[in-house]
């Protein structure tokens, strides 16, 4: 089975869960015999051996330089030396052209096209048009998630809606996301398969003895407890509500630190909010972190909170459990479908959020029981069943039509 896979990012050049999910899914698919060519819109070394990673540059472009985040502008360097800074929507259009050229020229033969999220969908439709191959589109999120429950960008919605209509099959990362696709895009439920994201435990690096957050470690030795959030500082992630809950928690459990790891367009606004709430002493912003600083943030947490307005899956919850923190998540989170042993709260209910955070901070037995039981569930997770299900979905469509180049 040869798969033309269209994606936006892969680790270590990822800004969030999308790249990680694509990477781990492809790894599991390859162990089950899938031959994958993964097309990304930039050139970089990924050190990946289990599949072919191909950069798709538009004509005349020699290099695309990524910025820190997938949602920032990229620098496009042209043959004639000109440099253009292009925003995400423009990048998506250039990617479409580049994939079109790539597919038109290629001598490779594919069985199926598999595209991840709206940024690749126009490219995917072009590829389908050129090859007449079956198209599976994979929704890691929809525009309503990213817009924090609002309508979002109408152009993005239109791309999503068109691709959902044209695709042969739609894969959603959770029942939560499937329900949103049925409701928001009026797609028949039987066209959509839920393939849960999972976690590749082999990718976890061991924690070492010395946690990177030395100050927080010292505070913990004095009886402090640490609440952690890791994610983009963007509307979808609902951090203002978490900070309002933090104020209520800190009033009742003063020895509490909230560790906020990540970057995003709400950064300044959140810092201002913390100051206005009068809780600056108890909130630590670290900015975007990778590697040890990232791992140790989970590890130092007594509780990981993922309060998202809508979280199609929520990989960070699994990472938190793997590195040692129990999880409080919003009821609007797909990962709740695979982790029952977690605390749940409606994203808008800041009082209940505070109630549950305070309960964990005040009762180590709750923290430890919650974590031990969630870790047991986590340890049973694997990408292999998800990969198997996907191969089954490919098979249903490839058996319907001949292979074309």
């Amino acid at each position, binding site marked *: 089975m040869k798969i033309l896979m269209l994606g936006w990012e892969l680790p270590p050049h990822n800004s969030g869960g999308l790249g990680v999910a694509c990477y781990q899914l492809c790894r599991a698919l390859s162990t089950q015999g899938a031959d994958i060519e993964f097309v990304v819109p930039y050139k970089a070394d990924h050190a990946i051996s289990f599949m072919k990673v191909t950069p798709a540059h538009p004509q005349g472009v020699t290099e695309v330089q990524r910025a820190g985040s997938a949602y920032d502008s990229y620098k496009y360097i042209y043959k004639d030396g000109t440099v253009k800074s292009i925003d995400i929507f423009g990048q998506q259009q250039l990617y479409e052209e580049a994939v079109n050229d790539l597919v038109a020229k290629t001598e490779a033969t594919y069985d199926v096209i598999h595209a991840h999220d709206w940024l690749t969908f126009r490219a995917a439709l072009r590829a389908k048009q050129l090859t007449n191959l079956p198209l599976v589109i994979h929704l890691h999120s929809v525009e309503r998630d990213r817009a924090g429950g609002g309508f979002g960008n109408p152009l993005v919605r239109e791309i999503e809606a068109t691709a959902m209509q044209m695709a042969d099959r739609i894969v959603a990362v959770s029942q939560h996301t499937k329900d949103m696709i049925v409701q928001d895009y009026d797609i028949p439920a039987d066209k959509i398969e839920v393939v849960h994201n999972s976690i590749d435990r082999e990718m976890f690096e061991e924690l070492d003895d010395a946690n990177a957050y030395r100050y927080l470690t010292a505070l913990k030795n004095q009886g402090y407890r640490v609440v952690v959030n890791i994610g983009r500082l963007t509307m979808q992630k609902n951090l203002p509500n978490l900070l309002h809950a933090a104020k*209520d928690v800190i009033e*009742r459990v003063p020895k509490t630190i909230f560790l906020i790891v990540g970057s995003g367009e709400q950064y300044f606004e959140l810092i201002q909010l913390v100051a206005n709430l009068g809780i600056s002493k108890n909130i630590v912003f670290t900015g975007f972190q990778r590697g040890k600083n990232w791992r140790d943030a989970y590890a130092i947490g007594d509780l990981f909170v993922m309060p998202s307005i809508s979280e199609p899956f929520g990989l960070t919850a699994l990472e938190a459990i793997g590195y040692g923190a129990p999880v409080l998540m919003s009821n609007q989170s797909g990962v709740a479908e695979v982790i*029952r*042993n977690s*605390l*749940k709260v409606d994203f808008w209910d800041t*009082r*209940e959020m*505070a*109630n*549950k955070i*305070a*309960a964990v901070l*005040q*009762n180590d*037995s*709750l923290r*430890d*029981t*919650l974590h031990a*039981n969630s870790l*047991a*569930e986590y340890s049973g997770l694997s990408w292999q069943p998800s990969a198997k299900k996907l191969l089954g979905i490919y098979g249903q469509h490839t058996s319907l039509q001949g292979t074309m180049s």
Partner: protein
Amino acid sequence: MNKAIVLYLHVHQPYRVRHYTIFDAGVDHRYFDAPYEDRTSNERIVHKVAEKSYLPTNRRLLQLLRDYPEFKVSLSITGTVIEQLERWAPEALQSFKDIVATGRVEIVAETFHHSLAFFYSREEFEAQVAMHRKKIQDTFGQTPKVFRNTELAYNNDVAQWADKAGYKGILSEGWDKVLGWRSPNYVYRPSYTENIRLLMKNYKLSDDIAFRFGDRNWAEWPLTASKFSHWLGSTEGATNFNLFMDYETFGEHQWDESGIFNFLEHLPGEWLKTPDHTFMTVSEVIDAFEPVDTVDMPHTVTWADTERDLSAWLGNTMQTSAIQALYDLKDHILATGDLVLIEDWRRLQTSDHFYYMCTKWFNDGDIHAYFSPYANPYDAFIAFMNAYHDIRFRLIEKGVVL
């Protein structure tokens, strides 16, 4: 020789803790008063159970007591359920009084609050047993002579205590590991005791009714009164069949639609067709038969789950830390002499609170969830601990230094 069915039914409802938050602690001391629509509303649950179970079952029991002079029943009924019936379903309480008034319903002793106090404070345990005795005397005009500990939690110590306290009998689970080669269908004597007798639940026959009755995948489904009577009648070498179960089996755990009431209505008639078959209460069977052996139970056995131990209530650290924290307040609480505060503290001792915090079945999405009014064991723990914090707040307000 006579063979007797000893039908013993346990009636209980806890005071469930409402969704009680850290913001309520120190502000609102009403932990047990959920809005009527809420899953934790005790009033709503009592209304439902009275309608589905207590009233229809007692109506049938009363008719059977009238129709069959040999028919007898034993009941245990906790103080917490009697109070709730007084308040929200007096007609259901009256129906219990009516069957007891026939003189052929024996009431069994236990703790008023359905607590595990025996394992945490002997003094508190004895206070609750005395409260229950008084409540039974006042409500039913009867003084219990046979004892059961909460959840049938039994070991040699419980038996010794009940013996010294003057009870003529005590009830336990007839678990295979304890019984060994013995049959539960006889009267026994607990080790290290003087006068007391032990009746052990025949869990296979009891669970045929309590758990398997409505299970269409069970090979014996449907279970009829004649089939069941035939099983008992053809059992060799038995004097008494101890059918111990939750009262709510009838109409609540097994719904009316399962045919459970039909089974109950026909059981006495089918059983009594054979001349030497009869029914006995727990006291009567102890008077009627000599003990055949002694039984030694150093470890605590209960009637719950495949483990038959206390792990459903005290199996994780949330449960053990919550219950220990509660009992650690005992001296301070009792010293206040504040009857409302003491009563709230005792209501939190009810074993159900700790059962709701049990995580061992949670991963499997087990049927036990049916019995919990909380979304998950963690929410149960959080509500309970916030109520506990409020109890502490009330102590602090009285000048107690914790």
